[in-house]
């Protein structure tokens, strides 16, 4: 079992809102009762981190944003997004949004992913390929001007030449690829096909042309008696057909249509207005024309495509080529929808039918608070920069919680700072069941006011294995995150002293009372363990449950042996009077009260460690 570093997840309060069910959800309590996880927590609404739903509402602190005006955490689920720019993640080329509509959501330059392994493909000349032993730099340089090109994966050495795709030019691969079928036969683009449809002379030719290509396995092409429409053509044919049907005189100018363009500059609405004044002609026409049903498509030209059910060619191919020649489900999933294919059933099956995958475009998004519409995150528009103009991360507003095991029993713990710990507590060590263990929670206050933290944790963790949890000091105050300059000026000495103090205390194991830290190493209920400039450590005592399963119980789920504590955190602080504060707090006090009390409450989940399985 992998070592587990303690972690903290925060549950965005937005998940609470939708939690109460709709009137229809009468069955959900029943469902919850049936779920053995949710047995005990129905009334007091303790958050159960093990419930399958909670996986959807928990976030690490780093994923959360914060709205300064609403004083609320905003998780990725509860922000409104706006797109700043579209770009290709491979060539980092920004794509205007108008292209997106016309050309789809993929990079239309020469950026492709390997259909086998998803690695990036590079355009290489095929000429240099035959003699790799004689690769010399001048040859390499000269070659690209010559021969055909192919896309090559440098990771798995897939090359598009394997599937018979070669290019004449090293650039504009996307456009070239659109015209090529696997196997090298040409494929018509949408525009060409449209022209071809009109031209009857082409049709006979077209019926013959796809045959060699489909023999590659799509449909096992015997000489096609009827024209096999590809997806796009069939769609276009159908669309034209339906539109023609709808536009038939008997259904034209239906009331719906007449109402549907109320654009005041449109001629139809002009005529409508005219007809209102001139009398009921419009009405009559409409009433008359409501009649009529569309007929159905009858020919391939109208989009009707008789199915070809004979797939024996493909079966034979499967038989002869075996498992290795087929494409895996994952590979097929990554394939973009290929509109040039015969139809949905002819979807690629063999590895030789895989096509290079043009990169999906990505977006840069700015995020707004859905309530107050303030921007809470805004990246730079330029694709190449990773900076943000505005980014209100929750980590700079709500206290962070660091968890580390507290070696109480051993007095010889030397390195207490950082994540390293004494010999008694190896990081990721398994917790002994039924033996109390202590964890130190360090709350660090990022804001410039002192905050008051109230913690609530159920005495027994929800779930099948109820561990006992005791938060020794559920209420405490954390001092403000004082000015950086203050810190710089006065800290260096004090910090060392602080560290000394801590270390000394760890070593001695005896009580060391100072004015700042009135506590002993002997745990005291209600006392904080340690306090710093803007942080406070408290101790949580857990008694891990035994993971012994009664016979007949279902076995442990994944991660069910991790001791997770749900903890309700309430943070209260008083906002400073308007705007005299520094830095990030400036915008917060739009309200003009001198001091405003604020609070923030949320559930969080502390993952402490794995319990040893006996």
């Amino acid at each position, binding site marked *: 079992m992998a070592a587990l570093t303690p972690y903290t997840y925060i549950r965005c309060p937005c998940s609470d809102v939708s939690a109460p069910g709709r009137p229809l959800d009468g*069955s*959900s309590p029943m469902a919850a009762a049936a779920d053995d996880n949710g047995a005990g927590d129905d009334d007091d609404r303790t958050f159960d981190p093990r419930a399958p*739903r909670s996986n959807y509402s928990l976030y690490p602190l780093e994923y959360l944003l914060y709205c300064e005006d609403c004083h609320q955490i905003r998780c990725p689920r509860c922000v409104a997004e706006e*797109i700043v720019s579209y770009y290709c993640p491979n060539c980092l080329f920004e794509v205007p949004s108008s292209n997106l509509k016309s050309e789809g959501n993929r990079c239309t330059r020469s950026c492709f992913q390997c259909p086998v392994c998803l690695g990036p493909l590079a355009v290489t000349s095929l000429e240099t390929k035959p003699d790799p032993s004689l690769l010399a730099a001048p040859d390499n340089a000269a070659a690209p001007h010559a021969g055909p090109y192919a896309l090559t994966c440098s990771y798995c050495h897939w090359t598009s030449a394997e599937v018979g795709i070669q290019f004449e030019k090293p650039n504009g691969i996307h456009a070239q690829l659109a015209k090529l079928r696997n196997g090298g036969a040409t494929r018509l683009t949408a525009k060409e096909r449209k022209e071809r449809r009109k031209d009857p002379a082409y049709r006979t030719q077209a019926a013959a042309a796809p045959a060699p290509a489909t023999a590659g396995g799509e449909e096992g092409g015997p000489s096609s008696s009827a024209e096999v429409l590809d997806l796009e053509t069939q769609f276009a044919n159908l669309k034209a057909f339906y539109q023609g049907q709808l536009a038939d005189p008997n259904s034209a100018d239906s009331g*719906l249509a007449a109402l*549907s363009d109320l654009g005041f500059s449109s001629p139809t609405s002009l005529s409508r207005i005219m007809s209102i004044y001139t009398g009921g002609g419009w009405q009559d026409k409409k009433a008359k024309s409501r009649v009529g049903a569309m007929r*159905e498509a009858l020919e391939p030209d109208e989009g*009707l495509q008789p199915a070809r059910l004979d797939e024996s060619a493909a079966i034979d191919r499967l038989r002869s080529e075996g498992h290795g020649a*087929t494409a895996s*489900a994952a590979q097929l999933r990554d394939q973009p929808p290929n509109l040039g294919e015969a139809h949905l059933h002819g979807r690629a099956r063999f590895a030789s039918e895989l096509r290079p995958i043009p990169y999906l475009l990505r977006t840069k998004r700015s995020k707004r608070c859905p309530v107050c519409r303030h921007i809470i995150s805004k990246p730079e528009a330029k694709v190449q920069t990773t900076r943000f103009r505005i980014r209100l991360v929750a980590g700079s507003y709500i206290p962070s919680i660091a968890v580390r095991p507290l070696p109480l029993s051993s007095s010889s713990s030397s390195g207490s700072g950082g994540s390293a710990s004494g010999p008694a507590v190896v990081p990721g060590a398994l917790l002994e069941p039924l033996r109390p263990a202590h964890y130190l929670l360090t709350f660090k206050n990022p804001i410039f006011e002192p905050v008051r933290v109230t913690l609530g944790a159920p005495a027994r963790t929800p779930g099948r294995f109820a561990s006992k949890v005791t938060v020794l000091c559920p209420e405490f105050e954390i001092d403000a995150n004082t000015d950086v300059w203050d810190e710089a000026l006065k800290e260096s000495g004090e910090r060392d002293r602080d560290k000394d103090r801590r270390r000394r205390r760890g070593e001695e194991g005896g009580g060391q009372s100072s004015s700042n830290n009135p506590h002993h190493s002997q745990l005291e209920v209600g006392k904080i363990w340690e306090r710093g400039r803007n942080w406070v450590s408290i101790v949580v005592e857990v008694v891990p449950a035994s993971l012994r399963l009664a016979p007949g119980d279902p076995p442990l789920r994944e991660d069910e042996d991790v001791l997770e504590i749900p903890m309700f955190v309430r943070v209260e602080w008083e906002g400073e009077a308007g705007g005299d504060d520094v830095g990030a707090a400036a915008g917060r006090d739009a309200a003009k009260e001198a001091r405003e009390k604020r609070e923030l409450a949320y559930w969080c989940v502390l993952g402490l460690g794995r319990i040893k399985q006996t």
Partner: protein
Amino acid sequence: MSAPAGSAPLPHRSVANIRSPPGAGHHPSGPSTPLRPIPSNFGSPSSLRADEEIIIVEFGTRKLQVGFSGDPAPRGCVWFGPDQQRRVGDFREWQTDYRYDWRRAARHGDSWGRDHELWQYDVRGVDLGLVGDKIERALSEAFTKYLLIDSRPRRMVWVLPSSLPIPLLSAALDSVFSRFQPPTVSLLSSPIALAVGAGVRSALVVDLGWSETIVTSVYEYREVAAKRSIRGGRMLVEQTHKLLAKHLPEDQGGSESKQEYVLSFEECSDITTRMVWCRPRQHSDDDQPASGSLPTVQEHDDAEQPGDSPTPGRTSTVTIPLKSWLSPTSLELPFNALSEPCEDAFFDSHYSHTSFDDHELPLPLLVYRSLLQLPVDVRALCMSRIIFTGGCSNVLGLRGRIFDEVSELVRERGWDPVQGKGVEQLRANPKLKRRGVRQTGESPMGVSSPPGDGEEQDGVWHDAANTAPEADPIEEQLQRGMDRRPRVQGELRAIESLGAWSGASLVTHLKAPAVAAIDREVWLQHGAAGAVRASDVDYKAQRQSLGAGGLMRGSAAGSAWTLGVWGAV
């Protein structure tokens, strides 16, 4: 929403193409300014709403397809799986030493593969909130990754199986309305969308889906009947697992012998899609009417059937690498064995037809029966418009096999709903037959009119042949609107559909209003309880109140709205 250039646009509908009215004589074409589409809510800050991008979402049990209306194919497809159900920031699936412990998950009740499903139709134990969460996450992934759209509210059209239970639909709507805030969601049933995508008005949609196979008869864009069988993709994958497990050496089982599954679902599913095929009908002599062939006699001696397939290498073996077994291995299988799962899952031809329950009919029988129960004219139309769809229709040869078996059944039995020994006897025994003929001969025309019901007494009734048929205005109108060209009917024929998603894309692009259109505010107020039955909705009134969008906005909360075929609470 802009129609691609060249497709004959409707002058009055797709206002974007107003400059090229094709053959519109009735259109007062004068100098006109090109129009922008009008947002449907006048006067409100329409900038918050994306212009005319209608998002079409097709829900399946295992995947979700999204795209914009007007596109021929969906832009993205999201599969449900256990990896999707992790917490955000949990990257363990990328760790090299991590492997999803499917065994552990599988032993939790019934969940071999259940975590790859969005929902089960048995909603008794379902956490509806979880379904909503899954949908939300999948949709937001699809929107971010494939559609590249921001979170402005957009209208949505959902393509749903028409047998979807209301609780699931309600959970989905709840989740989507609260997170994505579409102003309306219109629901389309997938059989209808498929029919549209095939260009027909009537069809027999054979949906070889994941959890079950549904045969839906669509007549004039209406679902008139549906029959289901649990023989679906899930069963196929389970049969594949059984086959693989059978061929695996068993000795290592030792401690884990009680375990039901020895291979992971992912692997079995993968092998199913890659390798499983369906053998053709056995005595198919090039569709010649085989003389005395009974479908029930199909011998099930696998792998060695000599006349099975005309391939030379029929004893060829296939090597399948298995990773999720106790130790990675590769398995040698005869190629013909790989057709067994399909055989067992969909046909079970070594049992007699009478031994099946209604919920587990083999597919040919299912198709035949659903055709059989249709009225004659509907059947005539439907049988020549069979549409195969669903994930399992990609199994090589399966469609052809079902089609052949059905035509064989039809050839053998005709459309006689009564069958069995008695009927055979009746047919065989000339004496019985004669009597039967006489009986039917006594009532020549009327099916329902009992003989001797006083036709002589009533002169008006009697002379039915001479009375002028009552003018049926609706029928007249239908006739007038109908194309005179003959429709293909009465013969078995399979046609290809673009798919439910593309059909919905067409429907939406043509601005046909959906029966079930749900307004966000109304839904948030009432939930599913506010829906009324489809017949109770006055479409005329609603249509009058339409805005620019073809998909209606149930404008006021007072107006009735419906969930259509999905019913009402």
